């Protein structure tokens, strides 16, 4: 009798939790009834039958709103072209993909990469995944599909490393857009500023006229967004690019000037910036609480959702000093080395770069296609103007959205910016920017 009990306990103790569970099951009054049910209910999830169908698992951070709808539209195109491949949508949300990228990072650590994933075209992908030899070059696909002919020449170097292209851009957003409230400008007889000095004058006039917030600003990433446009507006495209390829040092006098401009611009912003999302900040403009806001052109989609009319209730222009330059960011998809379903992944990328795929995605998402041969009639008034600019402007990359700096460099700049926001010490900020470029960027000591 006793030995039997011992045997039972030893059995219970040596093996896993479930057995332990049943061993004491008879004893535990309350949980006993439910406990045995637990492993049973889990079982189906664990043994989900693998489909005989080919699959492609695509990882993105498009989980809601226009992005998700756009992705769905592109999946429809994909399913039509490749009915025998099952599309697995592994989207994880998170502010500009942060959660998504942590999940991706842990998956890559665990040796379980998805078949294709979303990344901001440019250094965010190159500095991280290409450097770690995780991506296959896609030149063959670009040549085979003729994409080199339909995508802007200035775009290709920004998404390449050592002559290899590593991602397929699906859409293009513009970062250097100045949104304004036409009524406020009109009431104060102010023309839309085209240079930074004009901008200062306009904002001085607005302040004098009692406008509390000439320029609306939000949380820290929107400050970095403003920072990159002011850098571009002060330095111009060549020198701006030179900062990122290491040919212009960050302790250059021109950068000092840009930082001074930036510091001055911050004086026109709302004191509660830190507590506002980009949406809150953009809303200030259309509500008449602020005159200007610098934000990427996804703001236009937001204004439309708020049922605001273009031109009359909100206007747009390039950020002062950046006319003729298109500061872009792009969501793109990649082909990992050793993809589990390489053919299916290439099929997906083919759809991503196709006219049909891009025209399905972009009008819904509120962005313009990376291809210049898209059907313009599908796009609204703002997007059409952006398409015109995309075709003729000089293209430079965005910092905040991963084009010009790798992730390590960007976080170092972000840290320096955060400290600058608390102490407003431009000299220290500039020194920190130079240090960041030396430790994670192309600058050498």
């Amino acid at each position, binding site marked *: 009798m006793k030995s039997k009990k011992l045997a039972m306990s030893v059995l219970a103790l040596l093996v896993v939790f479930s057995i332990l569970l049943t061993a004491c099951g008879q004893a535990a009054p309350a949980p006993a009834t439910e406990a045995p049910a637990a492993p049973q209910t889990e079982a189906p999830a664990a043994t989900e039958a693998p489909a005989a169908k080919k699959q492609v698992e695509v990882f993105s951070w498009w989980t809601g709103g226009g992005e998700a709808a756009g992705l769905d539209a592109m999946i429809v195109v994909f399913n039509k072209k490749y009915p025998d491949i099952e599309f697995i949508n592994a989207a994880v949300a998170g502010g500009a993909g942060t959660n998504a990228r942590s999940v991706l990072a842990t998956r890559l650590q665990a040796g379980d990469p998805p078949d294709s994933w979303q990344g901001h075209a440019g250094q965010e992908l190159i500095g991280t995944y290409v450097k770690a030899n995780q991506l296959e070059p896609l030149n063959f696909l670009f040549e085979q599909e003729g994409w080199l002919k339909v995508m802007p020449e200035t775009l290709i170097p920004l998404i390449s490393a050592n002559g290899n292209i590593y991602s397929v851009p699906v859409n293009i957003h513009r970062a250097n857009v100045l949104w304004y409230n036409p009524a406020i400008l009109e009431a104060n007889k102010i023309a839309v500023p085209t240079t930074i000095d004009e901008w200062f004058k306009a904002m001085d006039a607005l302040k004098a006229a009692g406008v509390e917030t000439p320029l609306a600003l939000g949380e820290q*990433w929107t400050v970095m967004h403003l920072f990159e446009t002011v850098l571009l507006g002060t330095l111009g495209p060549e020198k701006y690019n030179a900062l990122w390829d290491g040919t212009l040092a960050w302790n250059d006098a021109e950068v000092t000037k840009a930082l001074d401009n930036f510091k001055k611009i911050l004086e026109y912003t*709302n004191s509660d910036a830190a507590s506002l999302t980009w949406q809150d900040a953009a809303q200030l403009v259309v509500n008449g609480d602020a005159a200007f806001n610098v934000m990427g052109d996804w703001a236009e989609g937001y204004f439309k959702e708020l049922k605001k009319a273009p031109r009359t209730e909100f206007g747009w222009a390039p950020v002062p000093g950046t006319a003729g330059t298109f500061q872009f960011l792009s969501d793109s998809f990649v082909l990992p080395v050793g993809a589990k379903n390489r053919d299916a992944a290439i099929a997906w990328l083919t759809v991503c770069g196709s006219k049909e795929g891009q025209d399905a995605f972009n009008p819904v998402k509120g962005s313009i296609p990376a291809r210049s041969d898209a059907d313009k009639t599908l796009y609204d008034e703002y997007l059409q103007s952006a398409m015109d600019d995309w075709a003729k402007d000089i293209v430079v990359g965005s910092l905040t959205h991963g084009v010009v700096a790798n992730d390590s460099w960007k*976080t170092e700049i972000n840290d320096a910016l*955060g400290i600058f926001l*608390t102490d407003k010490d431009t000299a220290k900020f500039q020194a920190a920017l130079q240090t960041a470029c030396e430790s994670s960027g192309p600058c050498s000591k």
Partner: protein
Amino acid sequence: MMRYRKEKWQSFLLVLPSILAIAVFVYGFIAWTMRVSTSAWKGLLPDYTWVGLKNYIDLFSDQRFMVDIRNTLIFTVVFMVGCLVVGFFNAYLLDQGLRGENFFRSLFLFPMAISYIVTGVVWRWLMNPALGSRLSGLNLLFDKLGLDFLINKWHTTPGWGIAFIAIPAIWQMSGYTMALYLAGLRAIPDELREAARVDGASEIQIYRHIIFPLLRPVTLSAMVILGHMSLKVFDLILAVAGKQLSLDVPAIYMWQTTFDGYFFGRGGAISILLLLSVAVLIIPYLIYTLKSEPEI
């Protein structure tokens, strides 16, 4: 005697699965983190080049980390004191045996049920610091109620913003301290109070000399629970304020530097320092409680 020894073994085997699980999930993972924290790993691929304590030393000249330490200290103090005071106050009110006690008790307890993923946005709105014509959130409510002196800049208050972040945390966790204190108060026999009253002690004296000392163990254990929570505070700040330096804490720095910037070595070092500070907080407590309890 034989049986006794056998049962000692049996008892050990009974906890063995838990011990093994904890050994892997806690100590194994900590060991891994320690190894990473002494490596030069930066970038996606592991790089276990030994750099000794460099990551740790660098942190102490890192301005952001200094901000983090200050913020954590402020947050911890405000959060702990807030939870203890509000919790005790609520427990005191409920201990009066008023009608509706059940209702109020549930009300004070319910925020514990909700995660910051759910309430973060609301708090972001409530603590909107805009002044003037854009007054909103609690400030707007204060304005409407004629409590203008309460209007403030909340978490954008220069230098002390982090203290305001403790408000939602207190909102969530004061129910826990309330429950602990209420349990503590109810456990104090009425005879003790009555006896003191007979001796002519005032209500205040009764609390000072009898009740507070008796509640001290409750306070201590609450402090340990709250203290470790405040050291690890993470999702609350992200939900209410996003990532910004003025409200930065070590857990956020760790997350951002590791997953946004791929500074795995530095992230590991921050983790270990966080763990050490938790250890400093709770090991003396563990020793104290284990020593002070009677032999069983």
